C-alpha cells in the first residue's frame, strides 16, 4: 500500500513538472519574441521525463534491495539455539517472521519471533521514511535542473527523443537479461548439484531414485541410497517422443501434401485452420484427455488383446503428444512445400508426370530440408513438453523400451521435484536444475540444427 501511494505521488509531481516546463518554455519564447526550436509540449515532456525516470529508478532500487538487506540483518536476531537446532531452515524462519510482521498469527509464536518481527517493523518504518525523503529530493532536484536547462537555444525535442530512444534500447536489453537470468539461475544451481553428484553418475547412471535428504539425516539407514542417474529419464523422454513422431509425422506430412497440392481452395480454407486448432489447445487439456480418456481406453483395449497396458503408459502420453504436434509438422511443411517454385512443378507436368510423381519426386525432395527442420522443431517441442507427461505418463523412473509400461521424463521429474517442499541445499532439489540444464541444451541444440539445415540448403534454388 505504501509503495502504491509513493508511486502515485511521484507521478503527480512529475506531472506538475510537465506544466512547469511548458510554462518555462512559454516564458522563454515570450522574452525572446521568437519561435522556439521545438513545440511547447516537448519542453513539458522533457521536464516530466527528467524528473520521473531517475526517481523511479531509485524507488525501485530501494524497494527491491531493502527486503534483501533486512533478511541478512535479521539473522542477528535469531537466537543461537534455534540456529543450531537440527532442522533449522532459514526460509521457514523468515516466513515465520514475515507472517508475524503482517499480523498473521497462528497460536502463540515464540518470543524471539515476536521480537524479531517488531525489529523488522521498525526497519520497515525507517526504510519507508528514507524512501520518501530520497525520492522527494531526487524528483525536486532533477526537476529543477531540467527547468534550468530550458533556455532559448535548448532543443527540447531532440533531448526528449534521445530519452525515448534510450528507453527503447533498454527495453530491447530485456531479452538479453532474460537469457542471462535463465542461464544464471539454472547454471548456478547445477554447479552446486555437480559438486555433490559427479557428472558421470548423472549422465550415465541408470538408476534414478532421489530420496528425501531428510531421510539421510534422520539416520534411517538410507544414506547413500539416493541415486541420480538420469539415463531412465532420457530414455523415457526419447520413447515418448518417438511415439509422438510416429503419429505426427505421417499425419502431418500427408496432410500438408494434400492441402498444398491436391486440395481445392475451399477445402484448404476449411481444413488448414482446423488443424491449427490442435496447436491452440492448452497442454493441460491434452494431459487431462490423455489421463482420463486415452489411458483407460488403451488399458481396456489392451486387455482384450491380452496385453498388460499400464494405467499410466508411455503409449498414452506419446499418442496424445503426437496429436498436439501434428500442426507443427503440417503447418511448417505446408509453408515449405508452397515455397517450392511453381516453375519446377511446371517442368514436371510438362514431361508428363502425374501429380503424385511431381510431388514425391520433385517437390518433396526440393522441400526436404524444410520438412526435416520442421520435424526437428516438433521433436524439440515434444522434449520440452511438461503437462501431458506429468498427467499421463508415470513417475516411475523405469528404463524400458516397452511403450505399454509407465515411464517418466526429464520434464516430469523437474515438476515433481520442484512442486512441493524445496530445500535449496539438498541434492534432490538441485537435481531439478541439472535436469533443466540438460533440457535447455538439448532443445537449443535442436533448434540451432534445424535453422542450420534450412540455411544450408536454401541456396539451392537461389
Amino acid at each position: 500500500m505504501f509503495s502504491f501511494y509513493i508511486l502515485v505521488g511521484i507521478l503527480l509531481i512529475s506531472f506538475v513538472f510537465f506544466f512547469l516546463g511548458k510554462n518555462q518554455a512559454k516564458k522563454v519564447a515570450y522574452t525572446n519574441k521568437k519561435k522556439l526550436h521545438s513545440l511547447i509540449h516537448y519542453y513539458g515532456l522533457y521536464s516530466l521525463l527528467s524528473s520521473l525516470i531517475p526517481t523511479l529508478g531509485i524507488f525501485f532500487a530501494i524497494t527491491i534491495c531493502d527486503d534483501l538487506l533486512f533478511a541478512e540483518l535479521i539473522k542477528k536476531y535469531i537466537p543461537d539455539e534455534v540456529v543450531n537446532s537440527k532442522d533449522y531452515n532459514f526460509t521457514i524462519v523468515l516466513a515465520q517472521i514475515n507472517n508475524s510482521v503482517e499480523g498473521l498469527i497462528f497460536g502463540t509464536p515464540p518470543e524471539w519471533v515476536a521480537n524479531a518481527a517488531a525489529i523488522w517493523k521498525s526497519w520497515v518504518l525507517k526504510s519507508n521514511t528514507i524512501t520518501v525523503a530520497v525520492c522527494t529530493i531526487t524528483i525536486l532536484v532533477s526537476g529543477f535542473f531540467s527547468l534550468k536547462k530550458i533556455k532559448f537555444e535548448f532543443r527540447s525535442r531532440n533531448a526528449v527523443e534521445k530519452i525515448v530512444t534510450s528507453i527503447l534500447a533498454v527495453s530491447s536489453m530485456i531479452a538479453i537479461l532474460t537469457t542471462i537470468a535463465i542461464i544464471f539461475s539454472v547454471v548456478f544451481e547445477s554447479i552446486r548439484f555437480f559438486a555433490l553428484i559427479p557428472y558421470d553418475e548423472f549422465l550415465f547412471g541408470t538408476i534414478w531414485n532421489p530420496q528425501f535428504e531428510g531421510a539421510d539425516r534422520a539416520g534411517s539407514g538410507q544414506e547413500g541410497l539416493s541415486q541420480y542417474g538420469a539415463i531412465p529419464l532420457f530414455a523415457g523422454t526419447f520413447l515418448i517422443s518417438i511415439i509422438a513422431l510416429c503419429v505426427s509425422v505421417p499425419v502431418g506430412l500427408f496432410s500438408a501434401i494434400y492441402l498444398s497440392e491436391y486440395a481445392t481452395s475451399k477445402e484448404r480454407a476449411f481444413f488448414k485452420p482446423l488443424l491449427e486448432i490442435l496447436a491452440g489447445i492448452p497442454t493441460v487439456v491434452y494431459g487431462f484427455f490423455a489421463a482420463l480418456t486415452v489411458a483407460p481406453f488403451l488399458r481396456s483395449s489392451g486387455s482384450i488383446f491380452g496385453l498388460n497396458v499400464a494405467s499410466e503408459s508411455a503409449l498414452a502420453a506419446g499418442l496424445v503428444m503426437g496429436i498436439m504436434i501434428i500442426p507443427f509438422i503440417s503447418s511448417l511443411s505446408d509453408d515449405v512445400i508452397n515455397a517450392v517454385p511453381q516453375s519446377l512443378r511446371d517442368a514436371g507436368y510438362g514431361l508428363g508426370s502425374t501429380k503424385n510423381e511431381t510431388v514425391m519426386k520433385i517437390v518433396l525432395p526440393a522441400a526436404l530440408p524444410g520438412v526435416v527442420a520442421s520435424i526437428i522443431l516438433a521433436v524439440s517441442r515434444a522434449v520440452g513438453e511438461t503437462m501431458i507427461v506429468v498427467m499421463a505418463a508415470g513417475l516411475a523412473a523405469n528404463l524400458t523400451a516397452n511403450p505399454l509400461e509407465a515411464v517418466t521424463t526429464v520434464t516430469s521429474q523437474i515438476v515433481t521435484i520442484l512442486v512441493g517442499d524445496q530445500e535449496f541445499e539438498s541434492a534432490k532439489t538441485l537435481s531439478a536444475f541439472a535436469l533443466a540444464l540438460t533440457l535447455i541444451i538439448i532443445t537449443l541444440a535442436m533448434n540451432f540444427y534445424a535453422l542450420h539445415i534450412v540455411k544450408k540448403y536454401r541456396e539451392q534454388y537461389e
Partner: protein
Amino acid sequence: MNNKIISPSDALDIVKKSIVKRRSRDNRLKLFGRIAIGVAVCFLLTLFYSIFTKGYPGFFQYYVTLDIKFDRERIDPKGDLSDNSLFDGEASIIVNESLYSIIQPKGRKEKKLAKKIVSSGKDVRIAKMVKNNPSLFGTTTSVKFALDDDVDSFLRGYLKRETPENERRISDKAIQFIDKLNEEGRISYEFSDYILGGSASGNAEMAGIKGAFIGSMLTLSVCLLIAFPLGVATAVYLEEIAKKNRITEFIEVNINNLAAVPSVVFGIMGLAIFISIFGMPRSIPLVGGMVLALMTLPTIIISSRAAIRAVPPSVRDAAYGIGASKIQVIFHHVIPLAMPGMLTGTIIGMAQALGETAPLLMIGMVAFIVDVPNSVLDPGTVLPVQIFMWADFAERMFIQKTSAAIIVLLGFLISMNALAVYLRKKLERRW
C-alpha cells in the same frame, strides 16, 4: 535416329501401358492425404466430444430443498451478523433438524448418515443468506442445498443400487433416505451455483472455478501490462532504430532462442530469481504475470516486427519528406499503421499464456487456496493449474467439474483467437 532412344510410337505405347498403375498410385496418395486429415480431425472431434460430454453435466448439480426456520437467536447468537457469531451459531443443526423431520432417521448411526447427505457447506450457505438478507430472520423459507458428491453420483447413476453394499460408496440406508426425499419431490437437478461462483474446495460438490478464474484474469493483466509495451518497444527499436551490428544480431539470436526454450524453464527462472533472490512471495499473480510476460515476449516481438516490416517504406519516405524526425515517423505513422498486426500478435500471445501451466507450477501456484484473490499480491491460482490439481481427484463429480472448467477455459481461448482473427480481417490493409 540412334537406336538407343526409343521411337516416339514405341514410347507412346509404353507410356499408355504405364498409365493405369501410375494413376492408381496418384489416387492412393490423394487418399492417404485425405485419411491423414481425417485422422487429425477425428482426434480433434474425439477430444472435444470427450471433454464436452464429461463437462456439460459439470455445470449442473443435484440439490435438496428443505424448509429452514430462520431463528435469529440460534443462528446469530451475538446478534451482530459477525463471522464469529455465525460460526458459534447453530445453522447446521437447524438444517439437520429440517432434514430429520422428513426422513426420520432412528438412532445416532442413522442420524450421522443422514447428516452427510447434505453438503457440508450448509452453514456457509445459511450464513451468506442471512448476511445478504437479514429480513429472513423469523421466517421459515425453502432453501436449496447442494447434495454431497457421493449422493450426486448416485443420483446420476454412476453409483448403482445393484452393486453390493460393501463395494459401494453409499450405504443402503442412505439410499433409502434419498428415495424418501425423492418421493417428496425435494430433489432437483439445477444449474450449479458453485461451479462458477465457488472456489477451490476439497468437497466436489462445493468446488468452483471463481478463484482460479479471477487469478487468471489478474495474472494475464500483469502479463499484458508488462509484455505489450516491452515487446512493442523492442520490436520498434530493432526494426527502426538500431543499426545492423553484432549487438542487434545478438539480441535477435537471443529472442529466437527464448522462443524455443520450454516453458518450464521460465518457471524455474522465476523460482530462482523472483522468489529466491528478490524474495517475492510465491503463488501471487504478480510473479506469475512476470514469468508469463517474459515467456510471451518473444512471440509479441516477432509478430510486432513482422507488422512493422509490412508498413511500406513509401509511408516513411513521405513523412521524412515533410521533415519529421525519426521518432516522430515511428510514433505518428509506423506504430499506428502496424498496430493491428501488433494487437493480433499480442492477443494470440495472451491466449497462449492463458493456457500455460508448467511455469506457474514452478512458482508455487499449486497451493490449495480457497479465497478469491483481491489483488495481484494476494495468493491465487490460475484456471489451468486448477484443472491440473483437480485432475488428480478421482471422484466422479470432480471429473465432471474439471471438464466443465476446461470448457470455460477453451471458451475463452476460442473467443480470444476469434477476436484476433476478426481484428486481422477487419483491419487488414492491402498496400
